[in-house]
């Protein structure tokens, strides 16, 4: 097994083009578990931890955060809780401090697990994933098209994930996850909600309840229409209970869960409707009670 250590982004892309069979290695919190516990050996490891560009984030001209693939959960929590509250909430639930110090959002996208905790908040805000190759340069993949199957994503063999391009929050966001304890759990199911007070649009993301992370399209459409129709964004009044209930039902219906060791499909569907109801209540309370500016 070879160990490739590119010192810059262009060098990394050149190495990946040469060796499409090289397995990228970021924080190692997925890759090393596999190396330690199974006999599977990739032909080569491509260590991405020495590439400065990957470790940083920046604000783009149109108010998006370009989050380098090698930014850790720890950085998201410490540095981006205001701009990306949903992602920061999800990051706080990942593993333990030691895992958050090392694990990256890029690694979560690379692993593409249906249970990846960064995925629901990225879906809820309509993030785009920037991927690059030596020969074809960069392209942006909408997050809805990024996950192609269980632990599979849309990367070509010669491509690497460069960054996630994420709209900054323009309204309350929430993330909630069900597990057997508060820390160190893979989600039984998870849910993210993003309210955009500017466009008056609702975004969602569901984790661990389908072969890939998904959005609850119907639920988004329903709530967006109701909030606009009843002029609730302007009136800043509490949500009718019937609206919350219908939203929760639609979220549960969007899921396609399975029975596994962590929970049954029936339980997951039920739990999702509870998460949807709670997160919507929290987010809307924050919106109308604090009178958060729509600008």
């Amino acid at each position: 097994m070879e160990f490739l250590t590119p010192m810059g982004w262009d060098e990394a892309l050149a190495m990946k083009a040469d060796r499409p069979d090289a397995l990228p290695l970021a924080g190692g919190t997925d890759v090393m578990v596999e190396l330690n516990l199974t006999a599977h050996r990739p032909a080569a490891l491509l260590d991405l931890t020495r590439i400065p560009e990957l470790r940083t984030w920046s604000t783009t001209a149109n108010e998006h955060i370009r989050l380098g693939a090698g930014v850790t959960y720890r950085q998201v929590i410490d540095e981006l809780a205001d701009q990306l509250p949903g992602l920061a909430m999800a990051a706080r639930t990942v593993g333990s401090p030691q895992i958050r110090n090392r694990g990256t959002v890029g690694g979560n996208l690379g692993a593409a697990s249906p249970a990846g905790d960064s995925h629901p908040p990225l879906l809820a805000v309509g993030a785009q994933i920037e991927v690059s190759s030596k020969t074809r340069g960069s392209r942006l993949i909408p997050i809805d098209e990024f996950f192609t199957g269980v632990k599979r994503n849309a990367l070509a063999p010669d491509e690497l994930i460069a960054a996630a391009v994420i709209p900054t929050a323009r309204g309350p966001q929430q993330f909630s996850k069900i597990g057997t304890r508060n820390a160190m759990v893979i989600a039984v199911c998870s849910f993210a909600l993003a309210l955009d007070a500017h466009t008056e649009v609702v975004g969602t993301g569901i984790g661990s309840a389908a072969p890939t992370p998904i959005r609850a399209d119907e639920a988004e459409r329903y709530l967006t229409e109701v909030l606009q129709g009843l002029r609730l964004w302007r009136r800043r009044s509490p949500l009718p209970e019937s609206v919350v209930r219908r939203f929760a039902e639609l979220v549960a219906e969007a899921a396609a869960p399975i029975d596994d060791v962590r929970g049954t499909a029936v339980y997951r569907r039920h739990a999702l409707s509870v998460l949807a109801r709670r997160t919507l209540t929290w987010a809307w309370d924050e919106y109308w009670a604090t009178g958060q500016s729509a600008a």
Partner: protein
Amino acid sequence: MRITCTVNGQARELDDVWEGESLLYVLRERMGLPGSKNACEQGECGSCTVYLDGETVCSCLVAAGQADGREIRTVEGLSDGERLHPIQQAFVETGAVQCGFCTPGLLVQIEDLLRRTPDPTDLEIREALAGNLCRCTGYEQILEAVRLAAGRIRSTA
């Protein structure tokens, strides 16, 4: 491959390291530093916790090649010669050590906590130690040790 790094302030150089082995293996089997423990090799137990460039990590999840050129601090670097670190002393006094397997990882993780948060609440302690499992003590004595050490470190700071 050859690995050069700094461990507990000392420059170390090793040859013929297999690139896929973990930093934990390198520390224990190649450098004779068995303080960091190997209990799960999957990031779940925290008994292998060390500092890597100033941040605590599970050394079982760091590839040897990733540690090249980096600065590592292990539990062996905590005491001042024969003089125990205040956290170690507090562990002894409160009975926070039973079999001792979890202790090295806890000591490193607690030192990191107290450097950032000198007067942590119980919730902050629990969150900081969520990735360190102990099969013996039931954690109460460990919490007690953290409170005791935190008080002593604050009063000497």
